[in-house]
């Protein structure tokens, strides 16, 4: 069996932002339960040996870990390509130089909107101005630079303006990603789900931007699967390409797999990554085609989308082994249609509020959405 191509390392669940579209689980790992530096270093070495090419350092906000430079240096030593997925908060010029010096290959910096007020409202904190400032600093370093924008009903109406704003930051790449409805994003689905018109309009805007920036900025987009006819090949198929390690060291086939009851995820503190990949029951559970129900089992698309997303089937149907209801061939496809119908009757825009404390702010926003919280040290 081929090894995984990428390792997603969720090095912490702590984050200075409270983005309403966050796909982190609602149950988060406390700071004191996080893996220690030597554990991560050992996992990176095992990953490189197993054939992994890419390391994605993510979270939470990886910069809250004081050992981040050490982690990057170790990954680089083992020959891994290192991606840092960050909000930028906690980055300074000296720290960036240190990370690049340690072998960091790529920074993906998130943005929430083009307008500061709206961006900070989505992130639940003051972050936008800092990100803009940081972009200037990143450009001066020898590191690949991607800006990421998660899009949803609250920011799609000025997508063209936002893309043009992001172009001025002069990234090498831009990722325009529709919200994926897991974790906090699922909880806030009613306020985030775009309308059909917004989705159609966004396609045209992105295509035009791709033409405009060809050869200068590579623009990739992630489509909203609720509006798709067929499901996404989630993570390239269960246990086929990726392994995710959560802050406590549990190895999962994807970000959201923790929602599937009855699966136990082995920990890198107890087992080697190779054993987990090849032998652990959780990674074998939905590998291959034996688990597939109809209509997947006899469908030509089963080798392309692998039956879609197991977690989505769990979250929306209560059965992880069902065909992803996104698929129009699914007997449960009506669930998606109902979810989309509810978006048409709800108010379209969440209005920014002001408050003296996050607590008050969170309270004032609660009719619209729930901000992502931080893990609590018990």
């Amino acid at each position, binding site marked *: 069996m*081929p090894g995984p191509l990428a390792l997603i390392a969720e090095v912490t669940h702590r984050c200075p932002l409270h983005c309403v579209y966050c796909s982190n689980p609602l149950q988060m790992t406390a700071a004191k339960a996080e893996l220690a530096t030597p554990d991560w270093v050992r996992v990176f070495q095992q990953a490189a*040996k*197993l*054939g992994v090419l890419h390391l*994605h350092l993510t979270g939470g906000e990886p910069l809250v870990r004081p050992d981040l430079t050490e982690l990057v240096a170790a990954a680089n030593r083992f*020959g891994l390509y290192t*991606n840092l997925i960050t909000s930028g908060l906690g980055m300074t010029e000296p720290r960036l130089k240190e990370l690049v010096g340690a072998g960091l290959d790529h920074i993906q910096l998130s943005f929430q909107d083009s307008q500061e007020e709206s961006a900070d409202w989505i992130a639940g904190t003051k972050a936008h101005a800092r990100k803009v400032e940081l972009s200037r600093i990143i450009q001066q370093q020898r590191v690949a630079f991607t800006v990421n924008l998660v899009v949803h009903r609250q920011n799609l109406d000025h997508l063209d303006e936002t893309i043009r704003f992001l172009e001025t930051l002069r990234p*090498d*790449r831009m990722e325009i990603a529709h919200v994926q409805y897991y974790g906090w994003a699922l909880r806030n689905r009613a306020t985030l789900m775009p309308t059909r018109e917004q989705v159609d309009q966004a396609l045209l805007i992105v295509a035009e931007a791709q033409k405009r920036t060809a*050869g200068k900025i590579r623009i990739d987009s992630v489509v909203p699967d609720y509006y798709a006819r067929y499901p996404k090949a989630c993570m390239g198929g269960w246990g086929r390409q990726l392994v995710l390690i959560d802050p406590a060291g549990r190895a999962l086939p994807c970000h959201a797999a923790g929602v599937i009851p009855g699966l136990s995820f082995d920990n890198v503190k107890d087992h080697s990554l190779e054993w987990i990949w090849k032998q652990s029951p959780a990674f074998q559970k939905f590998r291959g085609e034996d688990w597939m129900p109809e209509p997947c089992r006899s469908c030509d698309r089963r080798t392309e989308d692998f039956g879609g997303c197991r977690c989505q089937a769990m979250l929306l149907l209560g059965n992880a082994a069902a065909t992803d209801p996104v698929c129009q061939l699914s007997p449960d496809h009506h669930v998606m249609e109902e979810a989309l119908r509810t978006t048409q009757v709800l108010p379209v825009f969440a209005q920014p509020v002001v408050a003296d404390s996050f607590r008050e702010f969170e309270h004032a926003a609660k009719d619209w959405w729930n901000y992502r919280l931080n893990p609590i040290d018990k």
Partner: protein
Amino acid sequence: MARPQDASLPRLAVGCKWAPLENPEAEFDPTIEATVLFPEGAIRVQGTGRAILELCDGQRNMLEIVAELQKQYILVKAGLIREEADQFLEKLQEKRIVDY
């Protein structure tokens, strides 16, 4: 974006690099295929594509790269080599894997 000019100096873009060759679990033969890593992705190259890309070191210009390829592929007409190299590099430039 335009195709490379005679004086263009193609090279791997910032954040793009060759994957290390020693990989015990790799399912491909490193003497034939090589891998270029870029942000969040990788491409495998072999044959002429690999030959072109390996010459893109930021030192050689297009004329020198084509001359070098001409030595390796003596039966191919020079015009064809240039055409193929231009197309290939333009495609990679759009993906922001190559700069020139």
